[in-house]
């Protein structure tokens, strides 16, 4: 629980740094980053570790919760919550909200990036003597004329006459993300859902971060106050920054 939870905190920090490029970077930068994340072998290993951690953490958490429920077969007629925090009493509910979010999030973005055959590709529009020209960006920094190539295998550019591959494009995850949160019908709902999930995450980490160190026995008169402070800052700042991104996108022009 503690090890997987802390590993997921590291994952969150990394994932956040990438996502922030949606606000602070160009679409090309973001798509370069997205390509790096889906192809780099070191990142592959980390991503498998992350999938395993989420699975283990969720299964372990659910088993733990059932065992703990079974330890008190008859409940109290009157309870008083004053001796523990809301977050600490609702870790499983908060975690389940996060799990549902992770699944929908993966269907919306991760699965598209990995399996969607009709992903749009990164384009650049330039002014030319012949008027506006749409070019595809290629992964080695050059451009190909959109009119002159045929796209095969999702990202490969082919010269149709020569039947030769002339370049490879970036999947435009940036565009997918912006369209998702700006969708006329559901954009606001998706944005709200994202923000709510981040709220659950904040509460989960408010208790969870310091709890992990207590579980590992990593405590001390100097260490524990520092961990508690860092955990509180982490649990507020990280979900908040995550949540700002879809809000920014939804209201951007």
């Amino acid at each position: 629980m503690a090890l997987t939870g802390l590993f997921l905190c590291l994952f969150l920090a990394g994932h956040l740094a990438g996502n922030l490029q949606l606000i602070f970077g160009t679409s090309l930068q973001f798509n370069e980053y997205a390509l790096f994340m889906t192809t780099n072998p070191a990142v592959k290993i980390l991503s498998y570790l992350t999938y395993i951690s989420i699975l283990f953490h969720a299964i372990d958490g659910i088993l733990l919760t059932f065992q703990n429920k079974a330890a008190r077969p008859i409940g109290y007629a009157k309870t008083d919550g004053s001796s523990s925090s809301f977050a600490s009493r609702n870790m499983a509910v908060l975690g389940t909200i996060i799990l549902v979010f992770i699944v929908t999030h993966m269907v919306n973005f991760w699965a598209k990036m990995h399996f969607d055959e009709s992903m749009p590709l990164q384009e650049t529009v330039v002014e030319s003597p012949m008027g506006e020209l749409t070019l595809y960006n290629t992964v080695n920094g050059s451009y190909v004329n959109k009119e002159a190539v045929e796209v095969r295998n999702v990202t490969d550019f082919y010269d149709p006459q020569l039947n030769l591959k002339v370049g490879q494009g970036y999947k435009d995850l940036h565009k997918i993300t912006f369209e998702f949160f700006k969708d006329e019908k559901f954009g606001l709902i998706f944005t709200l859902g994202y923000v709510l999930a981040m709220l659950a995450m904040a509460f989960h980490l408010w208790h969870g971060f310091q709890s992990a160190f207590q579980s590992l026995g990593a405590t001390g008169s100097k260490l524990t106050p520092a961990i508690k402070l860092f955990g509180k800052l982490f649990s507020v700042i990280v979900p908040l920054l995550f949540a700002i991104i879809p809000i920014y996108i939804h209201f951007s022009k």
Partner: protein
Amino acid sequence: MSAAKNININLKIWRQKNASSKGSMETYKLDNVSTASSFLEMLDQLNEQLVNEKKEPVAFDHDCREGICGMCSLYINGRAHGPDTGITTCQLHMRMFNDGDTIYIEPWRSKAFPVIKDLVVDRSAFDRIQQAGGFVSVNTSGNTIDANSIPVPKDDADKAFMAAACIGCGACVATCKNGSAMLFVGAKVSQYALLPQGKVEATQRVLNMVRQMDEEGFGNCTNTGACEIECPKGISLENIARMNREFLKASVK
């Protein structure tokens, strides 16, 4: 402190004939309770009234009535040992209540603490955990070393003494949403782990006591911290962290 006065109260008390019967909350009215009386004296007064009415008195645990034996229990108005902190139920006074109050009185609720009758629960699970490892080996062949001749750092001695203050009342289990006994076991493990006398059995002690704790059906600690707040002897969560360290150390040995 204001002068004692008499109050009239309503009581909702768990009544259960024996271990195998179902049990239910029953309502009683008790008049003229002095605010200077202790909570247990109030129950004595109720029982006198019940006996006069030819009804079965309420069974509840108590012994020393001065906060040292750990026998008195009771979940009062949703809190272990009632309102007020750092006290056992025998140290709770009726001045904490007001005229016309309804007071809920329930037994400790835990799978490992089955109800014997009314408010009396069987806490022998704690005894079995103690027997599994809560002891030290002493040379009794005639050359027994006086404990005071073994130097102990003051800080360790103080911490061991604070851990040894646990009276095995079970409030930690009763108040924990997981019905976990980690504060009790943490205190018992710490008491010996901190002292040179406890080093001999250190590895086996923590493994055996934790195994026994799990076998008894107590839940798992998720660090909600309610135990520390309700413990009448101020046993701190640090003892649970120390036990976790001892357990990890022993597990990799």
